């Protein structure tokens, strides 16, 4: 029996999701599948499109790989737009030919609406939809200073953020009297505007653009209906979407008055062999411009094609939770209270910038909708009440009041019914999660890969973690935060005990607050805490046995028991004389020499007894220890900056050296890396560091909690246009808060992701001093900076400490017999026979 042919037009997120569902079902065997994509690239994640500017590549955003299509036997034809549809012959036409189908799926999505403004064809006018659009915007921004987004909706604000990240002065022009008119009310919109303006984005509401003409000071001038104007170097239109229904129109399928391919509950159009899903489909006179409903349609259609009589799309929840320019915004259900008899409960704290509104049913029993601005911590709870129809408590206002005013704690995961939807993108319920755990998933990661929960828009991450933790605990899986068997405390609690009680030794701490004698987990952790608090030499008698071998010998142990040495080269700046000393020392001790990723030089192969001799020479030449062995500041990488570079706007090297000299030696829960770039070209790759500084014309932008390595994370923009002094004070505070509150071996990226309230909370504590601890954090940091010593200098000058560096205490001349060497590419390297 020959197979039928199924053609999918459109390779976006929804089209891809449909294919994933279909190939996993029995119906896959009945069809040869062809997919046409207009764009050059495979389906990618448009929800996270802005991350493309923040450095994500197409590969990061891709939904699948071309190998996946091959493996599934799907023929993927990219860069081949479908231009014609003949329903009688059942063929589609592309520039390359005609193709027959038995079933046709239209997943053509939408296109950005550009209002018919005179001058909109100007080459520096763009839309914000595809990776190609983004490439064009980036190119235009290179030589520009300012950019305007037309449209203050969700996507428009995303686009404004993108312009800002490209270093432009960003403006938002909105026709309505407030931002996000669909999701927010007047108060919410006003607060969002205030917050966004504080971040340096200028908002212009109630402006209709009448014409775009050549500018005088910038490339373009926008004239508005109130006779005002605004000059800008580029314009991005984000004034809403329109369903891409051209094929349907030209072939006589039924379409809506204002566009959209009309579909029934089975996602089938007026032609029984043609189906439509996603943003191109009009269901019950509605277009769904979010990814979750599109996914639901995709799943429905896959079931329909498998002969499921009951499969039906019955509408979708349009609630959204997002961070726009770092500001939390949430909108749930009937946010505007249009249900007859609906009542409102509002909480508005202009002081801290939190606005919350609940829309409840006439009898006060059900939550119909909600609006949140400034703090989304109540979102998950409110959404669960709204989606699952959970009866509200007697005083429903407690759900949105701060705890200090009698607010109720969040709805715990235990209170959710099994049917509660946790991840709406992939339609995962609490019951599915429990099922996955019962089937053997023992942690968050495996639950995610098993159920796909939280792999769509990611909005449910925190809720998913709570549900998984709670279910694991119920099943007796211990989720313990004890450091180890010797201390029933977390690192943060131990830090507090040490600091508050003035404890200065491990022995005292374990006697008073622990049990036993310690181990290789708690000893270095406590050693680090003691160093962070009191900053005594790590080789002081009480502290020596606490240190990992690298800290004990202030060098990095390599596989054959020898060590590598990394002297500090602040900001990567080094004189030729010092460079020569490194070369001479390396030559004398026959050290393998390699340049590190942090703009330093690593010298490998020193024996224990050689270390103090080598350091004597390095110290004499003016070098200091580089702490490459410590959980402490490593390097502050820099580009060459305004001193030499024709693009640089600030002295990045000077700032890097200043930062490196300030924070060197500080012991932290894990290593800390920093970088300073002299302009937005970002040659120092600062956004992949724990602390990244990027020069602006007015000062410095600070990014925090980035990471490279195994689990890369882009740093978040924390504060803008800081002066030198402001920059240092801000870093002081964040570093010290990290030192005090992070878990053992927790990098800043994970620390922040686990901070309740995340970036927003961190900003409140550090920038607004919401806990009133900033003065104390600064004082603590000043104390550490004031007591800095080069550990190696102190060690080589102290005969007692030098005794530690004897390879064999009773045989100074004895060489370690397993340290054998060979030569490779003109340098020495170890040969190590396995034992």
């Amino acid at each position: 029996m020959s197979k039928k042919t199924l053609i999918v037009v459109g390779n976006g997120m929804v089209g891809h999701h449909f294919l994933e569902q279909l190939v996993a079902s029995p119906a896959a065997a009945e069809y040869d599948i062809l997919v046409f994509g207009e764009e050059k690239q495979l389906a990618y994640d448009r929800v996270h499109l802005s991350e493309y500017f923040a450095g994500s590549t197409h590969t990061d955003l891709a939904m699948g790989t071309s190998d996946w299509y091959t493996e599934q036997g799907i023929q993927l034809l990219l860069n081949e737009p479908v231009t014609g549809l003949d329903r009688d012959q059942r063929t589609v036409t592309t520039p390359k030919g005609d193709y027959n189908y038995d079933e046709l799926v239209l997943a053509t999505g939408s296109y950005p609406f550009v209002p018919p403004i005179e001058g909109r064809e100007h080459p520096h006018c763009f839309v914000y939809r595809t990776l190609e659009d983004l490439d064009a915007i980036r190119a235009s921004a290179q030589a520009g200073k300012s950019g305007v987004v037309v449209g203050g909706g969700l996507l428009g604000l995303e686009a404004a953020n993108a312009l800002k990240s490209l270093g432009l002065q960003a403006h938002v022009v909105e026709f309505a009297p407030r931002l996000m008119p669909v999701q927010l009310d007047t108060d919410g919109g006003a607060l969002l505007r205030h917050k966004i303006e504080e971040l340096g984005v200028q908002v212009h509401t109630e402006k209709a653009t009448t014409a775009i003409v050549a500018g005088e000071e910038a490339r373009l001038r926008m004239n508005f209906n109130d006779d005002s104007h605004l000059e800008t170097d580029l314009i991005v239109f984000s004034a809403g979407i329109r369903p891409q229904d051209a094929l349907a129109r030209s072939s006589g399928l039924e379409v809506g008055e204002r566009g959209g391919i009309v579909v029934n509950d089975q996602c089938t159009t007026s032609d029984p062999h043609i189906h439509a899903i996603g943003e191109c489909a009009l269901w019950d006179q509605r277009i769904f411009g979010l990814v979750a409903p599109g996914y639901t349609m995709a799943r429905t259609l896959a079931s329909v094609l498998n002969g499921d009589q009951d499969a039906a799309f019955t509408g979708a929840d349009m609630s959204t939770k997002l961070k726009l320019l770092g500001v939390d915004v949430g909108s749930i259900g009937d946010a505007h209270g249009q249900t007859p008899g609906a009542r409102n409960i509002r909480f508005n704290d202009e002081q801290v910038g939190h606005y919350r509104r609940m829309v409840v049913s006439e009898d006060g029993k059900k939550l119909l909708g909600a609006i949140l601005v400034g703090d989304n911590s109540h979102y998950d709870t409110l959404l669960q009440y709204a989606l699952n129809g959970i009866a509200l408590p007697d005083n429903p206002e407690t759900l949105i009041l701060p705890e200090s005013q009698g607010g109720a704690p969040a709805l715990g995961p235990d209170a959710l019914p099994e049917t509660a939807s946790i991840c709406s993108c992939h339609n995962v319920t609490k019951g599915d999660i429990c099922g996955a755990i019962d089937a053997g998933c023992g942690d968050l990661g495996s639950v995610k890969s098993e159920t796909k929960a939280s792999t769509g828009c990611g909005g449910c991450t925190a809720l998913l973690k709570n549900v998984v933790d709670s279910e694991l605990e119920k099943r007796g899986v211990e989720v313990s935060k004890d450091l180890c068997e010797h201390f029933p405390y977390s690192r943060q609690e131990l830090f507090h005990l040490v600091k508050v009680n003035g404890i200065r030794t491990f022995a005292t701490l374990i006697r008073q607050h622990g049990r036993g004698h310690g181990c290789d987990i708690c000893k270095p952790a406590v050693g680090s805490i003691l160093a962070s608090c009191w900053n005594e030499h790590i080789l002081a008698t009480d502290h020596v046995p606490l240190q990992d071998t690298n800290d004990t010998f202030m060098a990095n142990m390599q596989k054959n028991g020898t060590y590598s040495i990394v002297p500090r080269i602040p900001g990567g700046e080094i004189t030729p004389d010092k460079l020569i000393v490194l070369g001479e020392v390396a030559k004398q001790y026959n050290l393998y020499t390699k340049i590190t990723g942090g703009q330093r030089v690593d010298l490998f192969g020193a024996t224990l007894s050689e270390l103090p001799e080598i350091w004597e020479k390095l110290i004499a030449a003016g070098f200091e220890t580089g702490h490459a062995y410590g959980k402490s500041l490593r390097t502050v990488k820099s580009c060459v900056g305004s001193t030499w570079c024709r693009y640089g706007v600030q002295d990045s090297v000077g700032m890097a050296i200043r930062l490196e000299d300030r924070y060197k030696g500080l012991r932290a829960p894990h290593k800390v890396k920093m970088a300073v770039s002299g302009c937005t070209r970002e040659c120092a790759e600062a956004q992949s560091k724990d602390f990244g500084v990027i020069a602006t014309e007015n000062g410095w932008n600070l990014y925090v909690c980035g990471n490279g390595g195994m689990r890369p994370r882009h740093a978040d923009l924390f504060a803008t246009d800081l002066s030198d002094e402001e920059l240092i004070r801000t870093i002081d505070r964040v570093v010290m808060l990290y030192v005090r509150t992070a878990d053992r071996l927790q990098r800043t990226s994970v620390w922040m992701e686990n901070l309740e309230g995340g970036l927003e909370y961190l900003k409140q504590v550090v920038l607004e001093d919401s806990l009133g601890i900033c003065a104390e954090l600064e004082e603590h940091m000043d104390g550490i900076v004031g007591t800095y010593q080069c550990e190696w200098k102190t060690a080589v000058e102290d005969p007692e400490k030098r005794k530690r560096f004897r390879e064999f205490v009773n045989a100074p001349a004895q060489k370690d017999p397993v340290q054998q060497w060979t030569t490779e590419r003109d340098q020495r390297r170890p040969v190590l026979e396995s034992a």
Partner: protein
Amino acid sequence: MKARTYWDAVCTVGDLVPESGIAVWTEDGPVAVFYLPHRLPALFAISHTDPFSGANVLARGLTGDLKGQPVVASPLYKQHFNLVTGQCLEDEAVSVKTYPVLLDGDEIRLEVAVNQSETEAA
């Protein structure tokens, strides 16, 4: 047949580091000596060679106790070795050699086999 042994004076009390280890050279090769003052007896001696890497590094590991047993963690790949028995806690097929050790006045002595051929120690 028990090999002939003797008590080799390897170092003095002043060489020891409390709660930590040092390495000495013996006719039997490199040996790690640990001094845990909170225990009785307080001295432990095991091979200095880490069986997982072949490198001579065990004296440079962190000491402590796990479920009551005195242990050292290899500084390279972090496996734990019982200081009394030499048993590896992570892999029961692996253990390191242990040596009887005693304090003789100011001197630390290890019981090591007398080497038949002097060249072997070189």
